[in-house]
């Protein structure tokens, strides 16, 4: 089945099997292996990407369902040269160990902070509860996201305070 979408700002045309999930499409057809597959039944969140700005579980979407949509993955979070403020905050707070859940965590947090840059801890925890981590116990992840808020808030207001 033919489909067209935009992935990390780049237009993609593809011909895929109907049963190919968006996660597998990104990983294997496009070679964007930063999005990880942890459960394939919509619980762990490792596969989270954004679809038209909203965080979604890419293992629960067919690639063809992304036809006409704009998808962002972890590879699209920074321009390659430096870490984004959110990524840098994760590193500073030791918010990752094995790194497997990390892309999903980043995409969910990014999607949240774009829309709610003032989210409080309880809200952040609530939103992040759909992303499982086995290594960190979440404390450092939440602290990283709390610190990263400043970058989203100031970005939205054009840097003015």
């Amino acid at each position, binding site marked *: 089945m033919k489909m067209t979408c935009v992935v990390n700002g780049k237009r993609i045309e593809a011909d895929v099997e109907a049963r190919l999930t968006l996660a597998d499409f990104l990983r294997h057809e496009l070679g964007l292996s930063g999005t990880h597959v942890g459960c394939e039944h919509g619980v762990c969140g490792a596969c989270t990407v954004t679809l038209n700005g909203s965080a979604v579980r890419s*293992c629960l979407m067919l690639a063809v369902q992304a036809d006409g949509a704009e998808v962002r993955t972890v590879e699209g979070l920074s321009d390659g040269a430096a870490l984004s403020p959110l990524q840098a905050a994760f590193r500073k707070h030791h918010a990752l160990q094995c790194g497997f859940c990390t892309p999903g965590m980043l995409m969910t947090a990014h999607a949240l902070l774009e829309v709610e840059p003032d989210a409080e801890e309880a809200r952040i925890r609530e939103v992040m509860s759909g992303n499982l981590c086995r290594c960190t116990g979440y404390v450092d992840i939440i602290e990283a996201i709390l610190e990263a808020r400043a970058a989203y808030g100031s970005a939205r207001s054009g840097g003015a305070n």
Partner: protein
Amino acid sequence: MKLPQFDYAAPATLEDAVALLAAHQGDARPIAGGQSLIPILAFRLAGPSLLVDLRKLPGLDRISVSDEGVTLGAMVRWCDIEADRRLDTAHPLLSAAVACIAHYQVRNRGTVGGSLAHADPAAELPGIAMTSDAEIVIAGSAGSRTLKAADFFLAPLMTALGPDELVVELRLPAWLPGRRWAFEEYARQQGAFALAGIALFYDEQDGVAKNAHIGVIGASSGLHRLAAAEAAVNRRSVDEQVIAEAADEGAGEVDPADDIDASADYRRALVRTLLQRALGAASTRAGGRRERGLP
């Protein structure tokens, strides 16, 4: 857990969608958000020959609020309900229940129609539909029909939908001013299916309750209202004694099974506790929701 093979179509009109379902004689399945269906396919618990994607169908994603009540199109997503602040007053019970559904990512995709068609007795929306005595509008090759929730939900995971039929709309009756309501759910974790939940409302006249609607989520063999609990509340002043009686009645009306998560005894006791708390919350303030004692 790669998905089994199937064909896929994304028709542009409701008529085309219905025609595709009818043509495949029960071997095609509609897909909306896919949050329930894709896991079923991943576990290879179903093997439809065709998926009919509803995402292009026009006009199914509207929320309308009027004197008649609240109407939710089948493709309305949980995040759409969350974002529509009119619902805080137009149907606070719906808002409260939707806040408990699943997780952030699922809420961006999961739909009203999908949830109703899936009919999980532990899910929030079917419980709200049942409690509110809502109507469900269905489209099929024989035309359109409207069913009361009690006639739509036949058994756990089973509805009155024919193989060529789709949910089009959920119609919740108008919410009366001054109504007392509560939503109390207990789930093991944030966003998980409820071990039990109570949705209720009643109206008051001169301090006396009437028109009580009490529904149970998750702790019974199917979706139903708790008629005996409602009877214990109607025409009474809702005080501690009435609450205790209604809670006992309600606990007696549910027939949970023993399963790996909990025993029937536990769920029955949970229903009693939640019913007590819900009636307590409804009677002492304008209403409210609480789930799972989160800090």
